[in-house]
């Protein structure tokens, strides 16, 4: 890539100058707006990141408690609980709903969990420990809540990351490529227009010079013509040759100091 940014290839006219200037104004405004958007998105990004970190911590805690509850249930209800639960899987009763939220112009996904249908309480084959199993189930449902929220945060986080990268890319492109190019184009057009003006000016001056010389030449020619006419008249009157008439006239024109008339 060339070090100096190129300029656009345009015809250097006054109209084009106006057009390119308008584009430069547009680019500047766009650049300022995009920068603001990028800043707003970064603020959101950091907030989400903080929340993610704290939620992940609490998730670790909750998982520990839930697996502890499961161990208790296993202890009370016997080891068969695994198989019974595995057998009883049919349709999920805990599902997740996803919707979109608009944050600073970016669509972020958000998850909510909801219970769809009845929680199966028919754990047939479970002879004892029903209460422990219920407790365990409650603990795991709570864990699911936290996990769904964490998933929400994580997807928003990743989406925001993408959005920030795109916006920053656009800001940099405007700042480092588009604006210098337009500015160079404007400088070039102005330069060409100035040169054209100087050419015009020079041409005008030259023509004026010619005209003046023409005028002077014409004046000199006219004067000479007038003199000759007069000389002719004098020679006719005095009956002398034209040359003598010229001498007479030129003598009359010169003021000889020695001759006193």
């Amino acid at each position, binding site marked *: 890539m060339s070090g100096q940014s190129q300029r656009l290839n345009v015809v250097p006219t006054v109209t084009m100058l106006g057009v390119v200037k308008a584009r430069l104004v547009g680019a500047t405004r766009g650049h300022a707006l995009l920068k603001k958007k990028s800043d707003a998105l970064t603020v959101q990004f950091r907030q989400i990141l903080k929340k993610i970190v704290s939620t992940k*911590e609490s998730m*670790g805690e909750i998982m520990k408690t839930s697996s502890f*509850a499961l161990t208790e249930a296993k202890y009370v209800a016997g080891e068969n609980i695994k198989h019974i639960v595995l057998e009883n899987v049919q349709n999920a009763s805990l*599902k*997740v709903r*996803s919707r*979109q939220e608009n944050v600073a112009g970016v669509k972020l996904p958000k998850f909510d969990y909801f219970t769809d249908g009845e929680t199966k309480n028919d754990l047939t084959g479970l002879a004892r420990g029903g209460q422990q199993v219920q407790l365990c189930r409650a603990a*795991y449902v709570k864990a699911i809540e936290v996990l769904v929220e964490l998933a*929400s945060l994580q*997807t928003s986080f990743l989406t925001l990351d993408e959005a920030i990268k795109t916006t920053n890319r656009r800001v940099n492109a405007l700042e480092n490529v588009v604006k210098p190019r337009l500015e160079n184009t404007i400088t070039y057009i102005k330069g060409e227009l100035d040169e054209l003006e100087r050419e015009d000016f020079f041409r005008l001056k030259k023509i004026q010079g010619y005209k003046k010389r023409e005028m002077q030449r014409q004046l000199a020619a006219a004067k000479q013509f007038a003199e000759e006419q007069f000389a002719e008249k004098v020679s006719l009157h005095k009956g002398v040759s034209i040359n003598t008439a010229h001498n007479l006239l030129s003598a009359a024109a010169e003021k000889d100091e020695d001759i006193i008339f």
Partner: protein
Amino acid sequence: MANRAEIPTSNSALIAMIADEDTVVGFLLAGVGNVDLRRKTNYLIVDSKTTVKQIEDAFKEFTSRDDIAIVLISQYVANMIRFLVDSYNKPVPAILEVPSKDHPYDPGRDSVLSRVKYLFSAESVASGRR
């Protein structure tokens, strides 16, 4: 812009699981498990006999199904297919790493947090390890 038609809004999406037996049993107890007509489940129990290939296939399958919104994966399982997890960059479904009974949670190896480690190296990792 880059997100046009990338985030599906659905009204009922499942939670998939790739974890060890205890974790999966616990979540199934809560009612997350789903078996559809073709006997396809939304969970995979990982034990000492599961091969890495099986885990990989399950992961790829869960992430390409569009009725799954979240994939829970135990952290030690995620370590086995770390490269797949790290190269996954779609926003939906979301991949969450959960700890398991024998492997407590290690925020340093979480794929999402490691991506931002370069941003907040002191903050996030240190606060996770408190």
